[in-house]
């Protein structure tokens, strides 16, 4: 079977690409569109490294066929910073040293943003549960949780 022509929106921009029927959204982003910020981890939906949003819902792009995105909106890590200005989550990850090797980081950022978009003032417990689908084998998570809580406070305009 030939390749499938997909018309979608990625980070707000109308985008077209060709994909194989079996190709995942993860592979299409990385191999067809050169959006390599989204990382491949387990490829079975367990680690969250490939997290993106699909019509605003957080999903693992390894568990989405690229062809499924026809007519839908995809959000990736590349859409998070505004030009050279980092998103507060990205800035706080740097300030809190919430990353080491960095492979899990884009997924954590996308998942954390999905949480803060629906819950601007999460408890620590809420953050931990919301990020339970993202695995990090370096940091031990505490710095990530602190960075997310700090970014949430900044986004709310809380002064500390």
């Amino acid at each position, binding site marked *: *079977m030939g390749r*499938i022509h997909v018309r979608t929106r990625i980070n707000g921009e109308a985008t077209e690409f060709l994909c194989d*029927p*079996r190709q*995942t959204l993860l592979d299409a982003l990385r191999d067809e569109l050169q959006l390599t910020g989204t990382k491949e981890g387990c*490829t*079975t*939906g*367990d680690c*969250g490294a490939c*997290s993106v949003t*699909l019509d605003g*819902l*957080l*999903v*693992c792009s*390894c*568990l*989405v*066929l690229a*062809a*499924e995105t*026809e007519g839908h909106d995809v959000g990736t890590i590349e859409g998070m910073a505004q030009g050279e200005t980092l998103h507060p989550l990205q800035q706080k990850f740097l300030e809190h040293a919430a990353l080491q090797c960095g492979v899990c980081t884009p997924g954590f950022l996308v*998942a954390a943003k*999905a*949480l803060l978009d629906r819950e601007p003032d999460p408890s620590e417990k809420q953050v931990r*549960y*919301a990020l*339970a*689908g*993202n695995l990090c084998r370096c940091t031990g998570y505490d710095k990530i949780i602190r960075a997310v809580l700090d970014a949430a406070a900044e986004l709310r305009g809380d002064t500390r």
Partner: protein
Amino acid sequence: MESMHYESPATVAEAVRLLSDAPPGSARVLAGGTDLLVQMRIGRIDPALIVDVKRIPETRGVAVRDGALVIGASLETMTLRRAPDLEKNFPGLAEAAALIGSDQIQGRASLGGNLCNASPAADTVPALIVLGAQAEIAGPEGTRRVPVAEFVTGPGSTVLGRGEFLVSLHVPLPAPRSADAYLRLIPRTEMDIAVVGSAVSVTLDAGGTCTAARVVLGAVAPTAIEVPEAAAALIGSTLDDAALGRAGQAATAACNPINDMRGTVEYRRKVAAVLTRRAAAKAAERAAGRN
């Protein structure tokens, strides 16, 4: 690896035609893909045709219709959980749906997929059965309704015939002073598969006596199992400790579990009693608050 076709029909009839025309065993239905795409990745299945049913409106909505909450089979749980009619009417089903996987998985996984995947440990299946939910199936002969209790016939197998697919789930709205609860045990706090799941629904009369009950266990047999002996222990009681204890014993007796890395047979039998007692008490408390 053969080539694969991907189709995303917009109507039930078109999906049935695609599934019916495919050689037996060669087509798979795609909803959220959290099981299907993993099975393809690890090489367990190699379908020649994928029929993505998410463009079919009947598989997508959640709405009250004709005395039932109708849940589209492919609707992702993250969206379902935001539906105002779910938690209000079926707190037990809502808690079962909320237990499945991570937020990422919830963005894709559906009740229909949970049912059709036919895992013995599926969280929402016991919760649907105690509510008397029906599965609406479309196929070459038209549509038919099957109780969710009869839908799964064994691990990984269902009543779905050639050319058929699950369209929606119909959950009857609760009678007055009725409520449900679902509890499960996993070895960690999040992101694991049930060692035991227990769903209970109860109806109370004005005096607090239980007039109807259903008890269904997950992960302790090849399919979810209904335990009428446990329900019988609850019916006619005020759901006091003695009645809850008898229901728990009946749950233990009904278990037919396996040993695996998550729990031994003995552990599962014991936990089935504990969860059934607690779920029944929780359902009763909710029902009493619904006068």
